[in-house]
């Protein structure tokens, strides 16, 4: 049970608590160190000094799904790889978000093919889509800011809905 649910039971300050929690969450979206194909290189650059995603609170990329909040699916998802990606997603602790980064992750991209999943939203829920082949690292920042806006608007009930099995 999260702090916001406890507060909800006591029926106090629900609006402000939500705001406070969301404010905290939105500036500490830690991505998972994870990449599938060429787009992953753009994600690596997003952590470098020139682009520096740490300025927006995505301080470090975590190598363990247990410590990560954001799954950045960067690259081509093949059907053979799909079970592993799904498993990693399920291993991440709530709250968690997903950005589909690049055409391949959004729709399958240039691979209209028998071995590529035509969009990762077929296996995991996606919050923000970033088109491009590959998108520039700046697009990652844009997506991150979009995601922060989304987190800002989240309510306790939204979260519950997302985490339902």
């Amino acid at each position, binding site marked *: 049970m999260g702090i916001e649910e406890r507060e909800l039971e006591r029926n106090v300050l629900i609006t402000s608590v939500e705001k406070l929690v969301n404010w905290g969450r939105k500036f500490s979206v830690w991505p998972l160190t994870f990449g599938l194909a060429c787009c992953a290189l753009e994600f690596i650059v997003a952590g470098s000094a020139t682009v520096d995603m740490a300025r927006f609170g995505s301080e470090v990329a975590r190598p363990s799904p247990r410590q990560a909040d954001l799954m950045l699916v960067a690259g081509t998802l093949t*059907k*053979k790889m*799909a*079970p592993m990606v*799904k*498993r990693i997603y399920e291993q991440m602790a709530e709250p968690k978000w997903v950005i589909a980064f690049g055409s391949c992750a959004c729709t399958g991209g240039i691979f*209209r*093919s*028998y*071995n590529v*999943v*035509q969009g990762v939203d*077929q*296996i995991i829920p996606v919050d923000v889509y970033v088109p491009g082949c590959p998108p520039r690292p700046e697009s990652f920042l844009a997506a991150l800011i979009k995601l922060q806006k989304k987190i800002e608007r989240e309510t306790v009930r939204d979260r519950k809905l997302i985490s339902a099995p």
Partner: protein
Amino acid sequence: MNREKIEVLKRKFGSQILSLKEEKGEITLLVKLEGLKNLLKALRYDDEMAYDMLIDLCGVDYLGEDPRFEVVYLLRSLRDGDRLRIKVRLNEDQEIETVSDLWRAAEWLERETYDMFGIRFANHPDMRRILLPDDFNGHPLRKDFPAEGYDFDKPFEVKLEEES
């Protein structure tokens, strides 16, 4: 060196060799499916042959021809430094004997050939798909396989293996 080997081969397996082609110093033998294993065994273990390395094993689909498929063995002798290409034709309903007991490298190559063409290798220790998911429908390197696959319009589902 290679030529002497070919003479020996012709003497021993003359009835089995369908054609012999030489181009730019590369020798290609088309052989019959029956008795293929004996021929390959001789190539592997006979002292005058000593083709101890299997460089590649792959399939070819000649759609519309009979027999439809071809399996190609690329052999190399580390002792003599020469190469040999063996080809054999077979049909969809035919099985081909595995050579994974002669060259260990063949095990995965045969699995790949099965995965891509649906050519079955008899007596293979582990005849499963290797590159594609186990529940995949069809064999993608066949000429009549559509590039999008048969299940393109169906929603994709992942099945997580149960943890034991």
